[in-house]
């Protein structure tokens, strides 16, 4: 279980992790495939092998993709990108991306081991992503819905000014077009390189949710592995429905910090979706395979 959060801090620091899943596995090798358009994705090499980090089950990437990147043997949910979620959830895989012209700016000229500006340029050159969240609109079983989805690959899905702004514009779009709103979270927390600006996004996004609520439009927060810090301390936990994928790590403080604070080992299953549900903070847990159907039912309830 430690495997997943071993790389937690590294990802948030904008570095790639060291575990099998994040560094050497199929995930990285097909990365370009994940982030390119559907038409180009057919070029993903067939027959590439993937190993499940939970149960070591080996299958082809093609097989894994057919199973929506859920391990056919143990149901481990691999981390997937915004592109996968959009294609999986929207009717016929059809959607329109919104606000894709906004990207981060190194306003503070922040430099840690690497200048923030350089970090951004590196990721822009390596992927098709402009920041850690993409927003799209389309329909799920005919219900109009805006989905804002995080990409963990972009500085650990961290929350910065761009995510805050896209989130805000997404809410405005929902209100203008009377659509439901869903946010798919997958993030280590706030983006430190944007300092207090990133912190203020918590208040900014909450203000927008308040307007969405006044417009009586549904807001669904889907938490996936991992969701921490500034996300869970703001819109991640503010859904009309808070839902999660199975086995996702969800919390405010990261497991390493808690362990160092209490100086004890953490109990098995701590901060997993199932734990969060038992403690009363989730409405339900839904496997990726049942996600679209369940959303269809729920959106129907909100509407009728």
């Amino acid at each position: 279980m430690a495997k997943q959060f071993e790389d937690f801090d590294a990802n948030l620091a904008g570095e790639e992790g060291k575990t099998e899943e994040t560094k050497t596995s199929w995930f990285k090798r097909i990365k370009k495939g994940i982030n390119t358009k559907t038409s180009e994705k057919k070029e993903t090499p067939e027959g590439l092998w993937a190993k499940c980090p939970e149960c070591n089950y080996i299958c082809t990437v093609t097989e894994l993709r057919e199973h929506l990147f859920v391990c056919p043997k143990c149901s481990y949910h691999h981390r997937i990108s915004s592109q996968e979620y959009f294609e999986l959830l929207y009717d016929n895989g059809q959607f329109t991306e919104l606000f894709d012209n906004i990207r981060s700016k190194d306003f503070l000229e922040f430099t840690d081991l690497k200048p923030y500006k350089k970090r951004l340029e590196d990721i822009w050159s390596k992927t098709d992503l402009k920041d850690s969240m993409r927003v799209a609109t389309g329909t799920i079983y005919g219900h109009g819905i805006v989905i804002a989805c995080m990409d963990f690959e972009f500085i650990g899905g961290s929350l910065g000014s761009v995510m805050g702004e896209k989130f805000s514009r997404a809410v405005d779009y929902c209100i203008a077009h009377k659509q439901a709103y869903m946010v798919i979270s997958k993030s280590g927390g706030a983006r430190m390189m944007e300092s207090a600006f990133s912190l203020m996004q918590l208040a900014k996004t909450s203000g927008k949710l308040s307007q969405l609520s006044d417009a009586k439009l549904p807001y669904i927060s889907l938490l996936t592995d991992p969701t921490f810090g500034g996300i869970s301390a703001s819109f991640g936990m503010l859904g009309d429905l808070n839902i999660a994928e199975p086995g996702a790590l969800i919390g405010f403080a990261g497991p390493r910090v808690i362990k160092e604070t209490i100086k004890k080992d953490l109990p098995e299953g701590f901060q997993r979706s199932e734990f969060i549900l038992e403690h009363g903070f989730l409405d339900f847990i839904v496997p990726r395979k049942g996600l679209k159907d369940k959303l269809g039912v729920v959106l129907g309830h909100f509407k009728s």
Partner: protein
Amino acid sequence: MPTNANRQFLDFEKPIKDLIEEIEHAKHRQEKTKIDMSDVIQRLDQSILDKRKEITRSLSSWQRVQLSRHPDRPYTLKYIEKMTTNFVELYGDRNVKDDKAMVGGFASLDGETVMIIGQQKGINTKMRQLRNFGMANPEGYRKALRLMRLAEKFNKPVITLIDTPGAFPGLEAEERGQGEAIARNIYEMVRLKVPVICVIIGEGASGGALGIGVGDKVFMMENTWYTVISPESCSSILWRSWDKKEVAAEQLRLTADKMLGFGLIDGIIPEPTGGAHWDYNESARILKDYLVPVIKELKLTAPEQRTNNRIEKFGKMGFWEEV
């Protein structure tokens, strides 16, 4: 307030300590020899004042962080004691327990009832434990929200005094939904129908601070810091080492002047020369003189307009480019 003999000194305050010791010597000699030393003592007193001024004029970001954590610094209850009358402390979140790291209650400020809420640090080893070093659990945030709702019901302005190294990262805090508690507070504070004024009086660390930090006006006292993470944790994550806290503090631009420049706060409240720990009465008086007119002014705006302004103010925060 500590007497000179009981004062604690940071590294860079050491020259002041030396001067105080010189005064003590002079006084001692005066008593022993009966020679009038008042000239010398007066000169030394002036030197101390000059030194206090000199030191705070050229502080690094990290030194500013150190001042915000000064062991003699006044905490929330001290400000309440010095600024208000008729304070009635209210306890508990009506759910789990009373969180000693978060205090609050009704009080009279300049003859008017307000709700004052803030994190509370302990003044000695035993109290620091009891107050959990100013790190609230979810029940602390829920207690704060309960008090804010109470203020709203009776149309009383809310003042929050922020001083925390962060929300507590504990096992039980997670079980009881630390994230949800902070998220709920932020959300509800945006919508609160009464005037809300927030003041960073010491440390303003991340969500733990923002959990009582969304207001019509947000101020920082002169020697405080406010940002997304403590310089120590930032150093450990981004530099993979605990030794870069000074650089991290610099890079985070976490001081009041920087925050004001970014438009993320609405003003800086001055402190007595050398820092709030030199004079509690003066610190409280300055703070009170700041708060009273701001409350009056905020009351002139209709509640709905006030919340709209609040949403708009935070909505503008951020930087990005469009390509």
